[in-house]
């Protein structure tokens, strides 16, 4: 069974009739990594936000099935507890809430939904420290409020740390490479690669091919004008890099 099955998805930004997504279809099976590439304004962020259930978007047609469930019928927090994780392009600051507290709250919310007991404080600390160490996240960052005063690289590393801790089934990475220098990009990519398992699917959304040198996708989709104009294997990304988006967007217009 497919992990994520998007069929003919149409969506608009709330209070606007202008369609952003005009019929997206794609299927991710467990263990697969799909990349969605596209120019600015193609609808990349809309796609990730619609999957995560962010308010402010209206789905006007099509469906999203996640692990056999109608994802669009679920609230944003239910989707998250069901295993859908969005690594944000711009992670928001939450003053006064320590990163560790936040993570523990999120983890226990999921455990509770699954009828599991709360995680033991000691187990949580062990798990968090192990993950943090692997991702090069210093301990003091865990005590600092969520994303407050974090550099661009720290924010993205913290996102991957959260991903590692919450153990999602589907990871949506929204331009995780934006604002990262090459060293930070490597650390983040290594973190993501470590999470690739036969059960887990990933949707990597990016503007540049660069990230895909480190997170090697199984399938690449080109998104332009709200539609997937071409799909292929990893070589498609290289082709894009060589030819630019122009060649593909013209094809759509035609």
């Amino acid at each position: 069974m497919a992990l994520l099955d998007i069929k003919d998805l149409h969506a608009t930004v709330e209070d606007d009739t202008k369609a952003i997504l005009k019929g997206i279809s794609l299927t991710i099976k467990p263990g697969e990594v799909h990349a969605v590439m596209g120019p600015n304004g193609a609808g990349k962020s809309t796609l990730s936000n619609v999957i995560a259930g962010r308010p402010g978007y209206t789905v006007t047609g099509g469906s999203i099935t996640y692990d056999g469930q109608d994802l669009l019928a679920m609230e944003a927090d239910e989707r998250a507890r069901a295993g859908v994780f969005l690594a944000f392009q711009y992670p928001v600051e939450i003053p006064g809430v320590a990163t560790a507290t936040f993570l523990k709250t999120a983890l226990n919310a999921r455990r509770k939904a699954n009828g599991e007991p709360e995680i033991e404080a000691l187990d949580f600390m062990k798990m968090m420290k192990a993950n943090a160490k692997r991702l090069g996240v210093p301990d003091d960052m865990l005590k600092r409020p969520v994303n407050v005063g974090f550099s661009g690289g720290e924010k993205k590393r913290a996102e991957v740390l959260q991903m590692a801790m919450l153990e999602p089934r589907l990871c949506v990475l929204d331009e995780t490479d934006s604002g990262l220098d090459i060293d930070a990009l490597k650390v983040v990519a290594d973190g993501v690669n470590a999470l690739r398992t036969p059960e887990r699917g990933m949707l990597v959304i990016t503007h540049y091919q660069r990230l895909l040198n480190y997170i090697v996708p199984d399938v690449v989709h080109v998104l332009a004008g709200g539609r997937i104009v071409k799909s292929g294997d990893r070589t498609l990304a290289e082709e894009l890099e060589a030819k630019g988006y122009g060649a593909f967007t013209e094809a759509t217009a035609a």
Partner: protein
Amino acid sequence: MAATQDTIDRIAEVSGAYKYGFVTEIESEKAPKGLNEDIIRFISAKKAEPEWLLDWRLKAYRFWLTMSEPDWAKVGYPPIDYQDAYYYAAPKSKDDAPKSLDEVDPELLRTYEKLGIPLREQEMLAGVAVDAVFDSVSVATTYKKKLEEMGVIFCSISEAVRRYPDLIQKYLGSIVPYSDNFFATLNSAVFTDGSFVYVPKGLRCPMELSTYFRINERDTGQFERTLIIADAGSYVSYLEGCTAPQRDENQLHAAVVELVALDDAEIKYSTVQNWYPGDAEGKGGIYNFVTKRGACRGRNSKISWTQVETGSAVTWKYPSCVLQGDNSVGEFYSVAITNNAQQADTGTKMIHIGKNTRSRIISKGISAGRADQTYRGLVRMMPKAEGARNYTQCDSLLIGDRCGAHTVPYIESRNPTAQVEHEATTSRISDDQLFYCLQRGIPEEDAVALIVNGFCKEVLQTLPMEFAVEAQKLVGISLEGSVG
């Protein structure tokens, strides 16, 4: 950290109900309803008070008759009929006061256990001494003996009147005079009990002192009076908690708290106020009209108020510091949460008199539902307050579009070398913050509690540990039903 999860559990546990809304079935002794000189004489006689105290009460009562209720606060409520309340209600016991916990009515002990305040010393949180005030009288003070050995006096104010008349006569009404304001004057006339603390010279009181107030009886006003004296070089941390049963009618709570810090002394006074706030429609609840004032009499003295205000239908409260001693420090840390139909007009006054006095005000107001909340504060730099400093930060958070949040600071500068700095913001929980939490699987109400706890963190972390956890839970509970 754990508290956040606890918040969530607690929300599930109480699911919208006021947890402390039970009534204790206990036999009680009440004076007849109404207020007149005879009632005041009755209260005074009941407590075997000296003549001077009765005179003082009567003076206050007569003055009160000439006063009118303050109308400047941004709160509205129907007129209070001061004749339609009991001014004295006490749990019946064989003697005037129980000699030990064994004499305390077991029903009462169970009440406090339900409230999470075990009075039996062996069951107590280590290092917290408790004075429990039930309706009008103090029912038990724990760890008394141990404290007495160190020279710390911690007892009910009635007992202090009998045993330490000199201290009482010297300090009672010396910070909040009987003529201070309508509610404080009423309290001076009819106060029934409260706590008294004296910390001797040079002693750092090794345990937290705590009073737990509970209004139980119907139609009862609670008028407790607390007096804390920190002698030179001493330190004490004092905690106050309050609850009341759920009742349809409004009940008046008009307390007075007086603090005195002498040279190099420090008092830390923390309150978690969770009086019954009324139901979602605004029916019932406590009118919390309280006068709290601390005098930093001595050089280098310090008084720090921390309050977490989540309860009461109407709150009118301005814990203040009079900074008389040179280099003295006043602090006010406040979290006030109003939800449903609650109204709160609260803040502080920092009166800088001495040289190089310092004050710091951090106020976090959260308004939800149809509630109205006002921060009202005064910073006054007197002409002799050479080199004084004040910093004020006042932040308001609105949850929903039917509530109000107001900020009314008064800043009076009469010395050029005194620096005053005031900042205030009003905002709401951003959609982005909320979505971020939802995306991590945190349900909306928990997310709001989490974000609000973060917003209040600077204040909550000034609370002693035992209270901080309680307070964090309260933040979540108080905001139930405010979203969605």
